[in-house]
């Protein structure tokens, strides 16, 4: 599904991602871990064309992603969530999901006239959104602004908004960060379900969450891949241990999470 070769991202003189290779098959859940500043979010941003790549190649399902503009990536089957749930507060929960279907729908200015084809499209999109919202137990909140939702629900909605377009590759940036223990299982089930239909690449620090669901973990540090393997295998990798224990504040926090 995803084939990234030699991906390098630079911010001025800083090399945020350094010649990284990453391959992800058609289905399954794959995790990116690493201390803060390791370049995980930058990699996700690069794969979704939010930031530009200095060198390297990225192909999704054979399509060269680097040829695409940021808004074309979703049509190529790449959808993403955001670390801080970048939702649209002026829209309702339901409308947030409908924006996720933007590139599948075609209604333009004729929407102002509510033409029959507009109504058809709207109806079909709402049916899909309703199904997903019911699945996630968010249906009752459909008319609220996401700004009025608890943070955990916002994160859930953020993932749902990426999921509704039925992507081939789903990029999730710390989907569980900020969730309470009570909220975690619902999102976990949702992501596990997605992992059976498409490839999920997610940033996650909690090994215990990953052990149940992730097929493979890629560990990054200073923009490079330092280890790769099963969650339990990577956890014992001496290089990984050294990078986590040796980086001070962040390292300790993350080791504690392990």
């Amino acid at each position, binding site marked *: 599904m995803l084939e990234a070769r030699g991906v390098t991202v630079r911010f001025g003189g800083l090399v945020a991602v350094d010649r990284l290779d990453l391959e992800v098959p058609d289905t399954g859940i794959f995790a990116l871990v690493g201390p803060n500043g390791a370049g995980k979010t930058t990699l996700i941003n690069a794969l*979704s064309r*939010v930031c530009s790549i200095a060198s390297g190649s990225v192909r999704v399902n054979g399509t060269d992603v680097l040829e695409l*503009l*940021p*808004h*074309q*990536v*979703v*049509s190529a089957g790449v*959808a*993403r969530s*955001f670390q801080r749930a*970048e*939702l*649209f*507060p*002026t*829209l309702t929960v339901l*409308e947030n999901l*409908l*924006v*996720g279907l*933007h*590139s599948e*729908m*075609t*209604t*333009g*200015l004729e*929407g*102002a*006239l*509510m033409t029959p084809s*507009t109504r058809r*499209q*709207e109806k079909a999109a709402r049916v899909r959104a309703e199904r997903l919202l019911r699945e996630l*137990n*968010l249906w*009752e*909140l459909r*008319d*609220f602004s996401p700004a009025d*939702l*608890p943070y*955990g*629900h916002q994160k859930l909605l953020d993932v749902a*908004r*990426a999921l509704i*377009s039925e992507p081939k590759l789903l990029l999730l940036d710390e989907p569980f960060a900020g969730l309470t223990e*009570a*909220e975690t299982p619902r999102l976990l089930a949702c992501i596990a379900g997605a992992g059976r239909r498409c490839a999920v690449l997610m940033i996650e620090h909690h090994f215990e969450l990953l052990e149940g669901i992730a097929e493979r973990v890629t560990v990054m540090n200073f923009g490079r891949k330092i280890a790769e393997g099963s969650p339990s295998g990577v956890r014992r990798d001496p290089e990984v241990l050294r990078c986590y224990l040796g980086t001070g504040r962040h390292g300790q926090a993350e080791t504690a999470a392990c």
Partner: protein
Amino acid sequence: MPRYAVTVPVVIIAAVLPLVLQLIGERQVYWLFVVSEFFVFAIVAISLDLLMGRTGQISLGHSGFVAVGAYTAAILNARFGVDLLGGAFAGGSLAAIASLFLGVPATRLRGHYLGIVTLGFGIAVDQIALKWDALTGGDQGLHLHRPTLLGLDVGTPVLMYYVALIALIVATLLVWSLTRTRLGRAFAAVKDSEIAAAAMGVPVASTKVVAFVCSAFLAGAAGGIYAFLAGFVAPEDFGIDSSLLFFAMVVIGGMGSIPGAIGGAIIVDAIKNAAATVSGLSLAILGGMIVLVVLFFPGGLKALLRRHAAKRTTLDRTRNATVPLDA
């Protein structure tokens, strides 16, 4: 439209107003014109709200688009006898074309560029209208023929009142439908988070341009109707001051809401008419109101009126919700 409980009575009142004025009898023609003019201004406020409130782009020269529409309609009518519908449509179209030229470079980078470029546009339209007197009549202005609509004579104050009212209703319905479909959601998405909007497949820059062009079309069409309503166009009707009035309507009414824009238009139009004799008074009041609204009542009139109602519905919804909000 939802909230029939509010909209239906409002439309009925507007529809029977000429009758009431007829019964009162005093200065009927004047009041009919004032309210008709307000209907046209409300269309402009709705158009500006689509741009500012919905898409988060600022325009400080909306009266420039109104002027383009009004002059287009007036020239086409005076020279070729084009009727009201044709004039409004042509006026809107020309304003839309002008906005396309401005919008493409101005929306590409930073948000405030559009504010400055539209400010310049408003001034430029004014200057050109004055200078190009062979076409526009310069400071003498331009008179129109008695307005007709699809072959019917609508040249009485009462008929023009209904024309303006229907135009406002049509504009409201069009914008309301647009905001409830794909493109309108994209406008809001661009306002709320450009990065998330792009990730969902919304082309940010061109969506801003489309919103700007839609807004300019409506403002231009309103200008076309205004020309027929007033029967006369002159540059002083469309200065920077009237751009600021439209801006004040949107902010005071509460950005991102059609009823808010209409309510803001009522307030601003009333203040403008009441304080017209003292120079500086309406500007000071409206400026002060804008500052106060932004600081203390973000959401404007709309939020103020809705606060009570909203509290009730939120509670209702929470009670009905099977998902506890604090889960």
